[in-house]
């Protein structure tokens, strides 16, 4: 089995590693880089819990090899909040809307929403809800997540739609 040296930017920091050809990006992130917020729910691309962004796009980290991320910028749920701990708007929106219960699927949902609403991206509520078809949540019945999607699309995160703190 071939081994490969990779360089990537993970949550804003440069990282070098040696990986086996068969190591998935998800396993690399969890086991090697310590990003255990990347959750493996199915390992065949159905549940969406392992979703991260690669060069700004939401992708399944279980359906990508670590060696394929060579030279890429990868962001996981650990890279969302500001260094001072301030929540990213998608985290704030999910918290306010009670968009999570057990929290296992949540990191993946957050990364999809972050890819679609961060920077120049301005996804509509419909686009966010449509992208949710790529995530399975067994707790919430999705209604809290839909409210979070609406708040993100309408720019009302932190405007009292959910719990005050």
């Amino acid at each position, binding site marked *: 089995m*071939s081994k490969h040296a990779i360089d990537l930017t993970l949550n804003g920091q440069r990282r070098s590693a040696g990986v086996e050809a068969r190591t998935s990006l998800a*396993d690399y992130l969890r086991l090697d880089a310590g990003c255990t917020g990347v959750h493996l729910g199915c390992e*065949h*691309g159905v549940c969406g819990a392992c979703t991260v962004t690669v060069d700004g*796009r939401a992708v*399944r980290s279980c*359906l990508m*090899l670590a*060696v394929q991320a060579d030279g890429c910028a990868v962001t996981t749920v650990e890279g969302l909040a500001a260094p001072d701990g301030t929540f990213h708007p998608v985290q704030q929106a999910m918290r306010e809307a009670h968009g999570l219960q057990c929290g296992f699927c949540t990191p993946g949902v957050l990364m999809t929403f972050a890819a679609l609403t961060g920077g120049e991206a301005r996804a509509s509520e419909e686009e966010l809800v449509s992208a949710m078809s*790529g995530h399975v949540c067994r707790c919430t019945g999705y209604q809290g997540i839909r409210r979070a999607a609406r708040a993100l699309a309408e720019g009302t995160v932190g405007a009292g739609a959910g719990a005050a703190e």
Partner: protein
Amino acid sequence: MKPAPFDYERPASIAEACRILSEAGGGATVLAGGQTLMPLLNLRMSQPFILVDIGRIAALQGVSRGGDGTRIGAMTRQADALADPLLAAHLPALVTALGHVGHHQTRNRGTVGGSVALGEPAAEMPAAAVALGAMLELTSVRGTRKVPADGFYIGPYMTALEPDELLTAVTYPDWPEGHLVLFREVARRPGDFALVGMVGAAVVEEGIVTRAGLAWFGMGPTPIRMRQLEAALVGAALAGLDAHALAALGVADSAPFDDHHASAEYRRTVGRRILARSLREAFALKETA
């Protein structure tokens, strides 16, 4: 669910990729977007000796226009194709079908060529290639040959692609501006493989259908072109079309099967309904336009 061991190669050119495939003598598998291959690897249902990642070959990327239509490089990501202005202008049926391929997250990795080459019978891309009359470009160290999509598919995941060949591009012929788009699928959930689906295009000139290309997916071991329906449509006057009878003709060319998702009878019944509805909508739109 971890893959069996394999070697990984990342060629920088088509020639290099073909050389690796040739030397591997059937022991190599091409990794394009990986959205179907990676699950098969994780489940150990596929255990290649060498994985050939064609993701960094620049010549396989992008959409271009030429004398024979619109050419899509095999590694063009489904998400990029979905947002491509050339495809939106020239191949609206393909774009509509692309919107139903997998999920937003898998379209960010999945490729047009990977889906076409794989030949999943319930997938949108192979059926769209068949319906729209696409030509596939297959390259190996022996040279490049062009194979029509209609005829490329032999059975589930079985195609005319030789073990040493690489699908390098898919070229879709032009359909005239204003042509009609027909697309419908029924799936358990958005992003699931279709239980039944159909895709195609048609051209109407002065009340007469002058061209039609339609194909089923999820209705047999391969994507299936609706030859009888196409023959009945071409030359027919819109005023005389009977959507119900035409849909029955479309179903006559299908070969659905029973599986744990749906029965063959269900597929035929639903197939006839969605085809009739698509025909009614497409041709009525033209009438009222």
